[in-house]
C-alpha cells in the first residue's frame, strides 16, 4: 500500500507510471513513455535546430529506450511552450529547451510565468552574439562603425534583429546607450532572414548568432566586427578571409563595453524528483560527448559551458535580474510588471 501511495503523488499519468514504479525498485528513474521535448520557438530557428539535433543524436546512438519527440509551441513568443510545461505538474515526460525568451517573454508580455515555475536540469551551451556589417561597407573595425553611426542623424542607421523586445533588441538598446546615439531597430521573424536582409543592404548591421550568419560570412557577404562575450570564441579553424571565430575581438576590447550570451538550456516541469533530474543530466552528458554534438558546437561557434544543479539555478537567477534591469532601462516591461 505504501508503494501505491507514493506512486500516486509521483505521477500525473498515474496508471502507466505506477506500473513502471511498482516494478522492482532496482534502478533509478527512467522514462516509461515517449518524452516530449518542447521548443518554445518556430521550426527552423536556433533552438529548433538544436532540439532536432539532440533528437537525432539520441535516436542514432540509442541513448534512450523511449523515443524523444520534438514539439514546437511558439505562440506568444514562446509563452505557449512555457505555460505548457508549467502546467505539466509531476509529468517527467516533458522537458523544454529554452533561449533568452525564458526571461524576456514573461517580462515583455506579462504572461503568468517565471522560470522558477520550472525545474532547471542542465545548461547545454551558451550562444554568442556578433556585431555584423555588410562586407561592401567600409567599416573594418567597431570604431569605424560607431563613428559612422554617431555621424549619421539619429535613427537613420538601421539595426535588424530577431523578434521584438527580445535579445537582439536588448543588445541594440545597450549599444545605443554605450555610444549615445540611436538606431532604428527593425524586427524580423527569424535569424536567417535577418542575415539576408543585411546582405541585401536593407539594414545596416545585425547582432546575429554565429550559426545564423556563418554562411553569408563564408560567402564573403558580411563582416564580423566583434563578439559580445568576455573572451574571444574558442574555435580557431579558418572560416572566411583567412579568419576564424577566434580572430573576432571582443566588443569590450574594442571600446564597446557590452557582454551578452544566450542560454541554451533544459528545464522540466514543476515538482520533478531528484531521480528524474539525474536521469536527464546523465542523458545530456552522453549527448554532449557525441561527435555530432561537437560538430554542431563548432559550426555555431557556441560557448560550451555546461552547468547543472544549484550552480545552474543561480546562474539563471542572476541572468533574470540582469534581463529585468536591461529591459526596465529600455522601457520594455509589460504594464503591471
Amino acid at each position, binding site marked *: 500500500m505504501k508503494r501505491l501511495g507514493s506512486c500516486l503523488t509521483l505521477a500525473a499519468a498515474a496508471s502507466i507510471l505506477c506500473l513502471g514504479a511498482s516494478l522492482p525498485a532496482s534502478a533509478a528513474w527512467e522514462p516509461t513513455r515517449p518524452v516530449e521535448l518542447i521548443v518554445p520557438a518556430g521550426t527552423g530557428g536556433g533552438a529548433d535546430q538544436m532540439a532536432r539535433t539532440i533528437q537525432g543524436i539520441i*535516436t542514432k546512438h540509442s541513448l534512450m529506450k523511449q523515443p524523444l519527440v520534438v514539439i514546437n509551441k511558439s505562440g506568444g513568443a514562446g*509563452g505557449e511552450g512555457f505555460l505548457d510545461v508549467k502546467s505539466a505538474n509531476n509529468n517527467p515526460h516533458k522537458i523544454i529547451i529554452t533561449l533568452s525568451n525564458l526571461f524576456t517573454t514573461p517580462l515583455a*508580455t506579462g504572461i503568468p510565468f517565471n522560470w522558477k515555475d520550472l525545474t532547471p536540469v542542465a545548461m547545454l551551451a551558451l550562444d554568442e552574439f556578433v556585431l555584423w556589417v555588410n562586407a561592401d561597407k567600409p567599416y573594418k573595425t567597431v570604431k569605424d562603425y560607431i563613428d559612422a553611426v554617431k555621424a549619421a542623424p539619429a535613427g*537613420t542607421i538601421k539595426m535588424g534583429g530577431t*523578434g*521584438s523586445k527580445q535579445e537582439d533588441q536588448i543588445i541594440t538598446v545597450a549599444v545605443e546607450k554605450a555610444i549615445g546615439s540611436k538606431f532604428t531597430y527593425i524586427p524580423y521573424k527569424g535569424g536567417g532572414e535577418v542575415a*539576408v536582409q543585411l546582405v*541585401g543592404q536593407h539594414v545596416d548591421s545585425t547582432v546575429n548568432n554565429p550559426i545564423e550568419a556563418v*554562411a553569408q560570412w563564408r560567402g564573403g*557577404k558580411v563582416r564580423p566586427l566583434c563578439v559580445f562575450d568576455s573572451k574571444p570564441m574558442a574555435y580557431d579553424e579558418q572560416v572566411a578571409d583567412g579568419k576564424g571565430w577566434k580572430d573576432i575581438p571582443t566588443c569590450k576590447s574594442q571600446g564597446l563595453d557590452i557582454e551578452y550570451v544566450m542560454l541554451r538550456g533544459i528545464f522540466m516541469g514543476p515538482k520533478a524528483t531528484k531521480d528524474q533530474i539525474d536521469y536527464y543530466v546523465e542523458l545530456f552528458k552522453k549527448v554532449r560527448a557525441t561527435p555530432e554534438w561537437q560538430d554542431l558546437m563548432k559550426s555555431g561557434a557556441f560557448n560550451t559551458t555546461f552547468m547543472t544543479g544549484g550552480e545552474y539555478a543561480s546562474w539563471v537567477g542572476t541572468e533574470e535580474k540582469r534581463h529585468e534591469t536591461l529591459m526596465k532601462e529600455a522601457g520594455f516591461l509589460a504594464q503591471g510588471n
Partner: protein
Amino acid sequence: MEEIANLFQGFAVALQPFNIAVMVLGIVLGVIIGVLPGLGGANGVAILLPLTFSMPPTSAIIMLSCIYWGALFGGAITSILFNIPGEPWSVATTFDGYPMAQQGKAAEALTAAFTSSFVGALFAVVMITLVAPLVAGFALRFGPAEKFAVYFLAFCSFVGLSKEPPFKTIAAMMIGFALAAVGLDSITGQLRLTFGSTELLNGFDFLIAVIGLFGLGEIFLTMEEGLRFQGGKAKIDLRVVLRTWMSLPQYWMTSLRSCVIGCWMGVTPAGATPASFMSYGIAKRVSKNGNNFGKGEIEGVIAPETAAHAAGTAALLPMLSLGVPGSPTAAVLLGGLLIWGLQPGPMLFVEQKEFVWGLIASMYLGNLVGLIIVLTCVPIFAAILRVPFSIIAPLILVLCAIGAYSVHNSTFDVVMMLVFGIIGYALKKCNYPLAPLVLAIVLGDKAEEAFRQSLLGSQGSLGIFFSNTLVSSIMILGLIALFWSVIQNGFTRLRTRTAAA
C-alpha cells in the same frame, strides 16, 4: 554548359537503386501527409527528419524533398473531393475543383490538378538548373517594402474584380484581418486581442480556420440539403486521364503565366499560398471563360495548382543559395541540412556539388515518379465519392478533428474548428464570400509585418513604397489589378464611343 554536365552527374546519383526506393517511399508518405488536413508538409517532414539521420545526406534530402512533392500533390485531393484544403496553397484549388467534383467531373479535376502541378514544378526546376545564381541575386533585392508590395499585389489581383457585392467582400476581408491580428504582435512584442486567454497566445492558425470554414461549413450545408452528396456518378475509368490531357494544351497561356507567377513568388520568398491566389485571380480576370470561374471551370484548377507547385519548388532555391526558407517546409529542410553538416548559403553550390545536383536531379525524377503514382490512383480517389454521404461525412469530421488537433496538439483547436464551421455555414447562407476572409487570415499578418517594417525603416514615410523601380512597378501593377474593372469599362466605353462616332 557546366550546369548540364553537373546535372547528368546528379542523375547518376539520384538513379542509384537505393535513392529511387527512397524517392518512391517519400512520395507515397508525402501524398498521405498532404491528404490529411492539418498534418501538412512542414509537420510531416519534421516528424520524419530524425529517421533520415542515419542515411547519407543526399539520400536523406531526396527522401525529404520527395515527401514535400508528395504533400504538394496530395493537398489537391481533398480540396477537390471534399472542399477541404489539405494544405494552405490548395485553398484556391477548391474554388473550381470542388464544383467540378459535384458535377461528376472529379477525375478530370484531379488529372488537371496533378498534371498542372507537374508542369509547374518542371518549369521551376528548369529555372533552378539554368539560372540559379542570377535568380538568387534577385531575391536579395527584396526588403520589407518589396515584400509588402508583393502581398499588396496578391490582395489586389484577387479581390479587384470579385463578383460578390463589394461591401460583403470588404466585410469578409476585415473579419479575416481581425482574426489574423490575434496573438503576438511581432513588431512591438505585445499581445493583442488575447483577453488574457493562454489559448489565444498563438492566434488563429490558418489551417484550423480553413478546415472549419470550408470543410465543416460544406458538410453542414450538404446535411441541410438532405444528405445528398453530388458527384456520386463519377465514372471510374483510366481513359479519363487521357481525355483530360487532350484538352489541356489549349490552356498553355494560363499555365505559362502561372509558372512565372509561381517561380517569382517562390524565389522572393513569398511562398506558394499567395502564388496560388494571385494566379487564380489573374486567370479569372484574363480568361475568356472568366465568368465560369467558381462554377467548375478547369482553368480555375490549372492556374492555382501550377503556380503553387512552381512556387513550392522554386522556394528551395533561396533556401539552398541564401539560407532563407521560402516556405515552412523549406525551413524544416534547412534545419535538416545543418544537422547533416551542410551549410546552406552562397558556398553550398561550390563546395557540395554532388549534393546540390543530386537534389536537383531528384526534383526532376521525384516529380515524374509522383505524377505517375498519383495519376494511376485518380480513379481510386474519384471512387471515394461513390461512398454514401452518410458514411463519408462522419469520417471526414473525424479526419478534420484529428487534423485540427495535430496542428498544435491542442484540443482547443478542435473546438475552434467547430466554431469556424458554424461561422462558415452562416456566412455561406448570407452569401458572404469566404475566399477574401481566408486570404486575409493567411496573408494579413505577413502583410502587416512587412508594412510596419518598411515604415520603421523609412521613419513613417509612405514614399518607401515608390522609392525604387522594383517596388514601384509592383505597387503600380497592384493598383492596376485593383481598378482593372474600372479601367476595362473605360476602355470599352471609349471604343464604343469611337465606333459610334
